[in-house]
Structure formats: C-alpha cells, structure tokens
C-alpha cells in the first residue's frame, strides 16, 4: 500500500497564480512543476473574489506518462486518475485540488495547459462563481462577442479569421464566465487554438506548422494564436453579444434574433449537473447563466470561407449589433 500524505509532506515551492480570473494558491515539492504552472498563469484585473488551492506532490521516481482518464464524483468530491501514478482529488466545497503525479507528467506543460487546468476550472469553478461555456470569445473596442455553436460549426477558424480582422482574441473553445457588478466578465485560458487539417486551406501561415496528434486523438494544428497569426490576446473582456453559429452550404450570411430561452438552453447544456450538496454553487451558477441568456443574441448562418464570415460578422457587430444593444 502506498500512502501519499499531502498535508504532511514538505511543499517548499509556493506561489500565487491566476487562471481565468481565479487566484490559485499553489504549493508543490517540485521546482520544475512550479515553473510550468507559473508559465501558464494569466494575470487579469478582473480577479474573482474567491480562489482555490492546489497541493501537488511529484514522485520523482515515477516516469509514467498520463494514461487514459478515469473520472468519478459523489457529493462534493470528484476524482480523476490518468494512470496509476497520476491521481487528482477535487474537493469542491473546500475549493482544493490535491494530487500526486509522476515526474513525466510534472514537466508535461501540454498536459497542464490542455487538460488539467481546464478540468480544474470546470470542476472547482462552480464553487467560485465561474461558469464554463462552450463558446469562443473575441473582443472589439472593449466589447466582447461570445460565439457559440456545436462542434464543427467553425468556432476556431472563425476566431482566427476575426483576430485577423481587428478583433482581440480571448478564447476559441471554452470561455469561463463570471458575474461582475451588474454585468458579466468572460475569461480565456492559455490553451492553444486547435484547427483541423482543412484549415490550412484558409490560413497560409499554417503551412509552416506541423499537424499534431491532439489529446483527444484527433490530428490538428495546435498553435499559439499570437505567435502564429500575430493576434492580440486579451485575458478577459465584458461580453455584449452572443452569436450562435450555424454553417450552411450556400455562400450567404443571415442574422436572425435568438430568444433568451434558446440562449439559456444552450448555455445550460454546457454545464455539468451539480448534486444537491452544492446548492449554493448551483444557485450562483444559475444567476450567471441568466445574465448570459439576457445578452442580445443572434443565430448567424453562413456559408463560404471563414474570412467571409468574419467580414460579415464584423459589419454586423459594428452596425446592426451595436444599434440593437443600445436599443434594448
């Protein structure tokens, strides 16, 4: 039997980090892991009022890479394991992540960036008023645009095209939304943009990049949007509109108003059902979802290239979208 006593192990590396607006009090016994985590932290002026703690022990003798994930949860506790040496325990009520990991996983920045940090925000976020929504987020002149849509609708390619069209980039896949005063604030993470192989037909800059096997097994370009496309990245913004993306086969673009009921349904479908033991988190999350649902929302149906869609969307936001926002 092996016993991992996290509270009785010396964790000399201590730092305060920030992920999607949530402050993280990290303690670990690994200088290398502390350095990896520090590199992924994004400071923002919109920090949430509550944060979380991470206690991470690295077993230097283990070189086991991250294996197949196995998740379970009951009441306020969620566990995740990625092979025998990599176990994570999330305590939602105490907003704590305790974990033991191998040396190989400790230095695998891709694992933390693409898996563990988004998973942690998804699980513990509910206790911090942070709602993960399956949408991209871009910003133009201080106004945020949430772009939702089913997988394959083109959120990531449109995000890149919009960032080449004057928008600042916040996120392309998962956006973390919290209440702030009477409004809401949307946060991104440092996760890379993931573009499927056919995106190379739209973005020449991808020709210099190599396809990689992504964490879910798909072949894709996983790129830093600032480095590859010269995009300006913002850690957070205040959303003004919600756009629900649908692709059609005809080269056209149409905008039709979307009801708040539809918007609420979509956002609610992004979030995990919470057990009754987490009733406070459930109620707080519902209030955030309500605010997202009250954003001016449209269905955007388009065919053609992402550049065409980006141009149409920009025109709409600058003219009709803004007028509609202020008319409400």
């Amino acid at each position, binding site marked *: *039997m*092996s*016993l*991992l*006593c*996290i*509270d009785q192990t010396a964790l000399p590396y201590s730092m305060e980090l920030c992920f999607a607006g949530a402050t993280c009090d990290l303690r670990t016994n690994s200088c290398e892991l502390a350095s990896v985590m520090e590199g992924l932290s994004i400071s923002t002026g919109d920090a949430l009022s509550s944060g979380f703690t991470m*206690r991470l022990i690295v077993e230097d003798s283990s070189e086991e890479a991250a294996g197949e994930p*196995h*998740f*379970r*949860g*009951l*009441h*306020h*506790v*969620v*566990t995740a*394991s990625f092979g*025998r040496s990599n*176990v994570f*325990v999330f*305590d939602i009520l*105490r907003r*704590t992540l*305790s*974990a*033991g990991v191998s040396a190989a996983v400790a230095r695998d920045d891709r694992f933390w960036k693409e898996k563990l940090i988004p998973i942690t925000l998804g699980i513990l976020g509910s206790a911090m008023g942070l709602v993960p929504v399956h949408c991209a987020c871009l910003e133009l002149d201080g106004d945020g645009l949430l772009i939702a849509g089913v997988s394959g609708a083109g959120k990531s390619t449109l995000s890149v095209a919009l960032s080449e069209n004057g928008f600042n980039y916040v996120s392309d896949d998962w956006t973390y939304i919290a209440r702030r005063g009477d409004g809401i604030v949307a946060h991104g993470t440092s996760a890379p943009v993931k573009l499927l192989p056919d995106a190379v037909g739209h973005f020449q800059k991808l020709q210099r990049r190599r396809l990689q096997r992504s964490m879910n097994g798909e072949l894709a370009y996983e790129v830093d949007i600032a480095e590859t496309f010269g995009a300006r990245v913002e850690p957070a913004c205040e959303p003004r509109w919600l756009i629900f993306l649908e692709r059609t086969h005809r080269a056209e673009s149409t905008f039709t108003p979307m009801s708040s*009921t539809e918007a*609420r*349904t979509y956002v*609610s*479908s992004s*979030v*995990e*059902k*919470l*057990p009754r033991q987490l009733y406070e988190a*459930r109620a707080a*999350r*519902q209030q955030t979802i309500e605010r997202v649902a009250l954003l001016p929302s449209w269905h955007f149906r388009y065919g053609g290239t992402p550049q065409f869609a980006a141009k149409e969307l920009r025109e709409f936001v600058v003219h009709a979208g803004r007028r509609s926002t202020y008319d409400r």
Partner: protein
Amino acid sequence: MTDEACWHPDLLRRFVPTPYVFSIGDGPNRLFVESNDLEIALSVRGADVVHRQSSRSGGMLCKLIRDTSSPGDGSELTIVSNGALWVLYLGWGTILIHDRERSELLGFVARNVQIQELVWSLIPAVLGESVQQ
C-alpha cells in the same frame, strides 16, 4: 431552465440511483447507508468498523456505488490524504472517499471487489484503522 434540465450524460456517475437505504440509530448519532447494491448496503450496515466510526464522529453517511462500468483492474492500494479528505484507490476502479469533517464515506466499488475485502480491508484502511490481512 434549471440544472435539472441539463442533458449532459452522467459521466462522473454522481447520480446513480441508490434505492437501498438504511438508517440506524436515533438522534445525532444516526448512521445512514445508501447503495445501489443490496449486498453492499447490508454488509456496511452490519460492519463494526462503520459503527465505531459513526459513534466516534456523532453519526455518519455511507454512500457506496457498485460500479459495474468501472475497470476492475489493478490490485495496488493507494491512499491520498489531505487534511479532512482521505481517498483510497484500489487499481483505478475502486475509489473510497472519507471526509472526516463531514463524517461521510463515499465511493465506487469495482465489480471484481468482494464484499469481504470491502468491509474487512478497504473501508478500515480509508477510515484509518488497521488493514486486515
């Protein structure tokens, strides 16, 4: 729409129905046992180690799920402890959680784990009592 209307699949298996429910004792020292498996519920209800822990901590909730979809692999026992939480893994599939402050024993029991092993070995281990060989 409320949370109840979400249509996410229950990937964490948080919402597995537990129709076998026992309540033992009265007042603040009451022991609650919930499970989706009658054999587990009856065995935990009768386990001395659970009664001792319940008396010490002024009542206890035990919720254990027989997890037939979980991998029944591995015999390595690992315990992760951090303050109030103790979590026991047997392989990947069996996970027992003891929250000492809330006096809750929660968990998933893989299909290949025998009741005797659960009651005489795994539960004592996660409750901090010596492991029976």
